[in-house]
């Protein structure tokens, strides 16, 4: 009887091979921890079998002589006592080693995989992040990781119990071949029942998961729409909707329960039935003199410890496919080639004055053409507004000039040098981008502006002043050293944008790309910011704008529509274009945001 093998035949062998690969990867990462855990599991197995033999010894040499014949040898008694304690401790030690070092192996493997994953998140090109939702990427580091590493938990256990099975069987043979025969009939039967149970429970168990997920999104939706539900008085109908959905959970859970009710009692009762058979045959053998009562006691106890490897193996194989799939999801990210290995520019550029030139650039997103043959240039000291309907590719231009995305064709030059050839540190010094979403790190205000770069206090102060952030920062509890984020101060939308602006304009970059980065700032303050920026010598601004007041501040407006530049000129000139005029009207209507 070899339960793991029996189980193996039933499961998809490809799945199994990939599961083994998963395990071998962890073995390579943490050989030491795994080895100790496996040793612990084997120690546990040996001790468990030895304990049954000690019980047999105690029966024959202590209990029976003492109670039946009134002849107690105290040396035998205390030997039995010491052996039971010692073997019990050894068994406990084995279990401890297995549990503790398995945790080391598992979490150590997670640590390594998670580190690799995080490196990928930092090094992969921006296009990767544009395709994946943050939630999905976080799930890889959290839930997927947990499920993937779950497959490592029963490894030592399975090896240990496999070992146990062999040792126990050998012992049963040594006690009496007839007894071993009962085990050989019984335990494959047990394995078959387990397998059948595991297979049948898969479908209803995943139905439960699905029903739970559906109910959860129903509740989310229902509470999100509470205003609509309440104003239309649809509460009772929503309750009915929930009942229907939750009823499905109940139904599927009851089917899982029914399977459990069919199999579990039988699986647990089977060894007991074996013991009854053992007693019948055993007493006959004892009567014939070929078995002692102690050996019978040992055999009964051995039947007990043989019953559970089957269950473990079952759990091991139940979890394996899920783990393999979870690791697949993680590997999908790990196997992507990161930009660290990609070409990085080395050329230095003179710091001033700088120009930006975009030549015949085409950009695609998932094969969808976003920018089609775009060419324009920004001269030193010029203010250019990029205008166009939502989704026209204005932010794509920001990504392109920030080297966050590569054009599918065409070239971008910074100060007449091909953007890709420029040393990254020189590029970020010359050209900065203030993004549409003002992302702040859970760090101090100061660090949020500096982002690890070295600037003098004067430069910092100047940037804050131009960004019109001085006022509110000085009112923060710790000024520039105030912690932001979850455990710190929460800033308003306009304040956030001003911090990110200061981040972009510190250190006198020559070209600043403002990707709708003043949308939450009051128009009056926005004008002050732009006026302040213009006092800098030779500074060029590219502004993605949705407000007429902003657009009017530009020297030149570039109007993007349907992926091409439909017009360039002053706002007045462009008003002659119908598409531009209707867009401008919509902006006017939008007026003051609340």
């Amino acid at each position, binding site marked *: 009887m070899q339960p793991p093998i029996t189980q193996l035949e039933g499961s998809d062998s490809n799945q199994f091979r990939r599961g083994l690969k998963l395990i071998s990867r962890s073995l390579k990462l943490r050989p030491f921890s795994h080895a100790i855990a496996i040793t612990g599991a084997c120690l546990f197995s040996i001790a468990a079998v030895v304990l049954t033999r000690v019980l047999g010894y105690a029966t024959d040499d202590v209990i029976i002589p003492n109670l039946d014949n009134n002849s107690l040898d105290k040396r035998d008694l205390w030997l039995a006592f010491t052996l039971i304690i010692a073997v019990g401790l050894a068994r406990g030690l084995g279990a401890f080693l297995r549990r503790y070092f398995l945790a080391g192996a598992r979490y150590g493997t997670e640590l390594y995989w998670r580190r690799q994953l*995080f490196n990928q998140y930092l090094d992969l090109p921006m296009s990767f992040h544009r395709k994946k939702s943050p939630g999905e990427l976080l799930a890889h580091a959290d839930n997927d990781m947990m499920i993937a590493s779950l497959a490592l938990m029963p490894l030592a256990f399975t090896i240990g119990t496999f070992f146990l099975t062999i040792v126990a069987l050998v012992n049963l043979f040594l006690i009496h071949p007839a007894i071993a025969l009962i085990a050989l009939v019984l335990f494959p039967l047990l394995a078959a029942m387990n397998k059948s149970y595991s297979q049948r429970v898969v479908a209803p168990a995943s139905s439960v998961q699905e029903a739970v997920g559906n109910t959860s999104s129903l509740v989310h939706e229902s509470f999100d729409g509470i205003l*609509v539900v309440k104003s239309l008085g649809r509460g009772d109908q929503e309750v009915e909707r929930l009942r229907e959905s939750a009823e499905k959970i109940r139904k599927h859970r009851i089917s899982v329960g029914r399977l459990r009710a069919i199999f579990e009692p039988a699986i647990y009762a089977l060894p007991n039935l074996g013991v009854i058979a053992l007693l019948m045959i055993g007493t006959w053998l004892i009567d014939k003199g070929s078995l002692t009562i102690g050996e019978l006691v040992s055999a009964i106890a051995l039947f007990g410890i043989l019953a559970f490897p089957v269950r473990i193996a079952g759990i091991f194989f139940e979890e394996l496919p899920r783990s393999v799939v979870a690791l697949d999801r993680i590997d999908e990210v790990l196997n992507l080639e990161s930009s660290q290995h990609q070409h990085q520019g080395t050329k230095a550029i003179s710091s001033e004055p700088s120009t930006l030139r975009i030549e015949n650039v085409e950009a695609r997103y998932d094969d969808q053409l976003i920018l089609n043959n775009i060419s324009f240039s920004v001269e030193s000291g010029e203010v250019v507004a990029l205008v166009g309907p939502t989704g026209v590719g204005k932010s794509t231009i920001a990504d392109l000039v*920030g080297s966050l995305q590569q054009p599918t064709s065409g070239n971008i030059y910074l100060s007449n040098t091909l953007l890709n050839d420029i040393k990254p540190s020189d590029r970020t010094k010359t050209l900065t981008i203030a993004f549409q979403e003002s992302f702040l790190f859970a760090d101090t205000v100061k660090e949020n502006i500096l982002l690890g770069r070295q600037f003098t206090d004067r430069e910092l102060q100047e940037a804050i002043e131009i960004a019109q952030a001085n006022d509110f920062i000085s009112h923060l509890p710790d000024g520039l050293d105030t912690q932001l984020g979850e455990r710190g101060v929460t800033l308003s939308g306009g304040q956030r944008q001003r911090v990110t602006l200061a981040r972009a304009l510190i250190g006198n970059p020559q070209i600043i790309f403002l990707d709708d980065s003043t949308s939450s700032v009051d128009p009056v303050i926005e004008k002050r910011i732009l006026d302040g920026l213009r006092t800098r010598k030779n500074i060029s601004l590219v502004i993605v704008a949705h407000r007429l007041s902003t657009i009017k501040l530009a020297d030149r407006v570039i109007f993007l529509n349907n992926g091409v530049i439909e017009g360039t000129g002053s706002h007045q000139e462009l008003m002659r274009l119908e598409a531009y005029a209707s867009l401008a009207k919509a902006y006017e209507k939008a007026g003051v945001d609340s």
Partner: protein
Amino acid sequence: MSQSRHSRRNTRGEISFQKSEAASLSEGENEEKTGALVVLRRGLQVSPELRTGAGLTVLMALIVASGSLAIPVLIQQILDQGLRGEDGLRSNFIYISCAIAFFIVSFVIFAQRATYNRLVRVAETTILELRVRVFRHLHRLSLADHQESRKGILTARVTSDIETLSQFAQWGAIAWIVDSVIIVGTLTVMAIYSWQLTLVVIAIYLPIIPILKAIQQQQFLKYREVREAVSETLGQASEAVTAAPVIRSYGYQSSIRSKLEMANQNQYRRQIKAHKFFALLAPVMDTFSALSIAGVIVAGSYLGPDMGLTSGEMIAFVFLTTILIAPIWELGEVLDQTQTALAGWWKILSVLDVPIEVHEPESGEKLRPGAVEIEASNINFRYRTGSQILSDVSIRIPAGTNVAVVGETGSGKTTFVKLLARIADPTNGQITINGVPIHEIDAESRHTSIQMVPQDGFLFDQTIRENVAFGKPDASKEEIQTAFQSLGLTDWLNKLPEGMDTQTGSRGERISVGERQLVALARAQLANPGLLILDEATSAVDPETEVALVSALERLSQGRTTISVAHRLSTAEKADLIIVFDQGKIVETGTHQELSTQNGIYADLHNTWMGNTQTI
């Protein structure tokens, strides 16, 4: 067989332990301490389903326990009576007693099946009813309780908290019932063989209670630290992911990388530390198990001969001792899960204690069709736990008036219109519709006559048709078509990929904000209301939809009283009456002409707005 129970539970404990660790990751709140009995009493009171046939359940658990106890008794009988009777082997006795044992064990299989089925059914029915009850209660709560900040907590009560409870019902609760019966049953059989030895066993096991408690406590604390570390790591990772463009374009990778590494390492260390206590349980249990067996053998050897203990009884006693360890171990392992489940249960039950504030009248007055007249006199509103939102607001709105409500964010303008739709009741003061106090109006009639179109035009993840019919489920396809038609939206509708059957996606995300409002307007049109309350969309709507929206709105407001929360002052310019809110009070009322010359708040707002949209 004793070993089998022991080990099975050991394994199951390990697996369920993994699960509870996973489940607790989503639990951010501190568990409050409430006595288990208090929770149980309140729980039984709320869920009568749990009480039905509790006696039967215990009886069945007793039968299940007898399955475990049959084998040691059989061993004793065979050893003492069968094997060494007066005349040697008594085959018939052995066959008969084995047959009886076989019958008991087989019977227990079916009894246990029935018990499981019963327990699962009771538990799941209870959980279903509890979920529905709490959900219904939450829906009846006032809007104040549905503030944005609390939405997550409310949702958790009917989702993850209930799931935790359900997980507990599947393992922990069953373990408590079956294990306690096994422990009591085993001790009883032991006492029948020898009460002296039973006392020895109990004395050896007693210290396990404080030890288990201490380990549990440490485990609880360490796992809380693990949860904190995990959320710290995820927080850092979330920054690395959401700030990807910033990190790249400012060359901030190395700094973030070291932060991530620190969080990652910290998480690892804490996980290992926490696991140490879990690992420690094994040697503790094994030590007690070995001590009790060894102790029984020693005590039996010294006391046995004088007590007339037979060797069969002694051997049976040893097996019974090994049976005892498994349920104790399992109870030790489900203790933590039990605490979490009880705390979760209490949190769920506590929701039912939040009072419902808006009560609908038994037989209210019906509103007649057509535009309604509204009067608010001295209304105040404050959240139960919060600050004053509206103070002393009085206004009379004649039937058919087109009203614009303006004011800064937080001025109370949105709360004011919500009170008019009776989504909450004023703390004091009175609102009358057509002269009838709002709380005396029949709910059904009010829901039809007063239609509110929220800012984001919230849609359910269904088709457009279903979303329009949300307020009137029996509406025919033609009626819905007519609603769109009368708003001049047929063209727009036909342009959609699947027309009226287009899926709107979660929260209506598949269509634009402006389009969501169009659907919401159609929903309102279908009800033919006397009062239309509109919360304008704040974000820019694309020009084409804007045109459709404006004209649909104009048609919809004809012949009705319309109140718009205006975010664009162009709406206010056209209104018959402008109500200006500031810090919870009405500070100005009048037409655009009157107010723009007054140098008040409205004039200020209007000037800023003009400054932003000056002549083109």
